[in-house]
């Protein structure tokens, strides 16, 4: 326990949320030492589970009084270390704020607490003709609050946009404990777009307690197909040609041979194992236009020498195709004891080049890399396979990751399309942005989080000098 988190703080926290909602024993805290990014770990000193916004506000005020750092956590599925409690302190876990408060179909919006799991909302909306569009692959576990904080995407964001395009407003607790409503169910609130600033701020500007989210009409129909290619170049060329032809598919996902083999071994979908790449393509919308879009896509695939194009004939076949995509990560376990999923973005037309470079980089560092990704947005997820027990391998994996992300930047892209900066990619911020850009970001953070007690040492490289004496780098220094 860091010196600042003393017994009196613990007692006061218990008064706010009750004994059953405070964890402080080491054996309980280790569960919270990291999120989906497992390379760096550090235990919080206390974990609290508030049930109301007032409790969150009181906890935050208390942390300020005691001058200890604090940070929000949802389901902890972040892949960038956003939930790493740098410097220990109080972790505020929002998973007990789990009510769907309102579903208003007439106004196409829902009002939910931030601990609501993404999939619960999907289920609650089933049969209404509406859905909540952002569908991260982790949707069975991740929370709406976490989605808002990381501006999550998913396979269907190619057509429907990412989280920020679907959040109308939030209720939030500011770094000093003030409760505010930012935006709301009506569009275009006056003044600055603080909702836009909060979404994607990775828990460093405020703690989101509730959100008004936009609901989207279910498409009338859908066509799902699978195109098999003998070369990755041909597949990636087909991608930019489809979109260049003015068709915006609902989803356009790519799997390369490495991942195909793993998926096939795990689930036996009947994919050809000698194929270099497959594209999972889905168009949705009005029945009246779907066959035309499907036929045009099929023609483009054939122009690019697709070996075959399979069509899902019914809902069951469609579900099977999607299962192969959604469970691809799970199948990776068959290939190697550990893996690291990278997240980079390039302009779509740079995909052929980028995939070639990934192969070369993997070869140069003797790291096996497989790919399954949101190809339509140019959002790559190279998966680097290694064995965690071998520190020499870890070194090579980190160097290969860095080279891949550098290459994304050289192509005019980004080092993260959806997983965020967290602690993982802080070093890349100064490659992507100028000192002046970063200073502007630091100023925005100062306006919201002047003491920098809310999730310190995240996102901005300058955060290292965040002025908190009790900050220690956990295992960061070891890397």
């Amino acid at each position, binding site marked *: 326990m860091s010196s600042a988190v003393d017994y009196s703080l613990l007692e006061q926290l218990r008064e706010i949320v009750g004994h059953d909602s405070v964890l402080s024993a080491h054996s309980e805290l280790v569960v919270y030492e990291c999120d989906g990014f497992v390379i760096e770990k550090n235990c919080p000193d206390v974990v609290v589970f508030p049930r109301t916004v007032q409790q969150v506000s009181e906890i935050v005020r208390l942390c300020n009084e005691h001058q200890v750092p604090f940070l929000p956590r949802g389901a902890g599925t972040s892949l960038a270390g956003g939930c790493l409690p740098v410097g220990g302190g109080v972790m505020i876990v929002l998973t007990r704020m789990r009510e769907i408060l309102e579903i208003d179909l007439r*106004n*196409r919006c829902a009002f939910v607490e931030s601990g609501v799991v993404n999939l619960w909302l999907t289920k609650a909306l089933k049969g209404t*003709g509406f859905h909540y569009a952002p569908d991260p692959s982790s949707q069975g576990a991740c929370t709406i609050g976490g989605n808002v904080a*990381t501006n999550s995407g998913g396979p269907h*964001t190619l057509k429907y946009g*990412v989280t*920020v395009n679907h959040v109308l407003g939030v209720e939030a607790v500011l770094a000093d404990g003030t409760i*505010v*409503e*930012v935006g*709301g*169910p*009506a*569009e*275009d*609130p*006056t*003044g*600055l*777009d*603080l909702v*836009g*600033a909060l979404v*994607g*701020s990775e828990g460093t*500007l405020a703690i989101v307690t509730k959100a008004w989210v936009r609901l989207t*009409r279910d498409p*009338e129909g859908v066509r799902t197909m699978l195109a098999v290619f003998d070369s990755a170049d041909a597949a990636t060329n087909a991608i*930019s040609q489809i979109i*260049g032809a*003015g068709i*915006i598919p609902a989803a356009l996902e790519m799997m390369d041979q490495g991942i195909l083999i793993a998926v096939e071994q795990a689930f036996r979908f009947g994919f050809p194992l000698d194929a270099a790449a497959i594209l999972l393509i889905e168009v949705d*919308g*009005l029945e*009246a*236009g779907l066959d*035309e879009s499907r036929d045009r896509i099929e023609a483009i695939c054939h122009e690019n020498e697709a070996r075959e194009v399979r069509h899902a004939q019914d809902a069951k076949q469609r579900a099977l195709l999607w299962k192969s995509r959604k469970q691809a990560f799970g199948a990776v376990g068959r290939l190697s004891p550990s893996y690291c999923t990278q997240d980079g*973005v390039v*302009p779509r*037309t740079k995909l052929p080049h980028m995939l070639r470079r990934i192969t070369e980089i993997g070869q140069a560092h003797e790291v096996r890399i497989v790919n399954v990704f949101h190809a339509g*947005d*140019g*959002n790559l997820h190279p998966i680097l396979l290694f064995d965690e027990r071998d520190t020499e391998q870890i070194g090579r994996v980190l160097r290969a990751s860095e080279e891949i992300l550098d290459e994304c930047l050289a192509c005019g*892209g*980004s*080092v*993260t*399309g959806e*997983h965020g900066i967290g602690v993982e*990619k802080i070093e890349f911020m100064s490659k*992507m*942005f100028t000192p*002046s*850009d970063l200073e*502007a*970001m630091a100023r*925005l*953070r*100062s306006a*919201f989080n002047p003491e920098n007690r809310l999730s310190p040492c995240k996102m901005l490289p300058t955060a290292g000098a965040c002025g908190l004496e009790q900050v220690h780098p956990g295992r960061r220094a070891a890397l």
Partner: protein
Amino acid sequence: MEHATLSAPLPISENVTPASVEEVATCLLGAASTGTAVYPIGGGTSLDFGRLPSQLGMALQTTGLNRIVDYQPRDMTISVEAGFTLQALQQTLAEENQRLPWDVPFANRATIGGILATNHNGPRRYGDGTVRDDVIGIQAVDGQGNVFRGGGNVVKNVAGYDFCKLLTGSLGTLGIVTRVTLKLKPCPAAMALWTGSFATWDDLEQILAALVTSACRPSAVEVLAGPHEILNSAWPSAAPDALGWLLVALEGSEAEVDWMSQRLEQEWHAQPVRSVERIADDHANRVWQHLTESAAPQKTSLSLRINVVPSATIEILALLREIDPQAVLQAHAGNGIVLAHFSEDLAQDLPRLLVQRIHPSARKHRGHAMALSGPLLPELTRQAFFGPPPSTASLMAAVKKQFDPHHILNPGRAIFDLE
């Protein structure tokens, strides 16, 4: 640097027209050191947007920043300087069969930077989202002359804070936008514009609610009420008892638009919509233009924008109609946004009506009202202009202070600008 002359409702003592971001930075650095107010001006189409400032200052025209920096049609992205006009941009995009789904008055003069700063959104916001959804990268200069960027060149990107969103709608109070990168959309092959009249507000709500679950997927759901000029002249058919008119735009492939047209006609048959008609294509352009330009200031005492939850649109329309039977009203009804242009004889009473009736009603329906333009503007108190401040007003002021500590960027114009 070229010095231009310009007449504007702003208190301007000098004009500058920088031709590069470096020149903008130099201007702002200089202004910051002397504490000179700076009023960024694009095409000059919305200069009375926001409260009227009193401080004498410098007009910084962005029209010298007028280059396309990079257009990648196959990636469907474009980087363009802030002073580029929307019309010129749309012409360039049309050559590749692409577009921005933005509907903005005076597109031949309105600049990309100005549209962003005012967050101007027209009818198509219903189907295509708003300006902020299309901005993927931004460069701006803050109130101390620092150049800063957010976002990048790719359609998906979560690195760093999202300045693209923060600056959209900030009315040039945090920084002068110098360049933006935009995500583009393909042009639809076909469009149909359908109209019908309604006789009561309750009928209108019934029709609007049904449109939310219609088999069609409209790209715009608009309502016109009051003495719109276009209704006198070339309107498709007369309906003497009409309280107002609905307009629904359908866009997509030929097959989709044909199918939706059939369905909409059937659906409207079962609802209290009268005089249903598909507006002939040659006429549709004119009507569409009216829907876009009607948002612009007219001969009026005051123009107002009210945003509420969509289901309350009729409450607002009814209230405004009651206050001023001659008010020219337009609603982006699918989104709960109402634009009102009040007649001139109401000038005396409006400030009081705003505070006592319009703001409270907007608030009741979870929204706000805001004055837009008109000769009455200078007479409005802050509260009449914006209504009660939101719970985030001091947070907005804190953000403003970080980006413009000398308080030189558009001083006095925004709701959070506490002077």
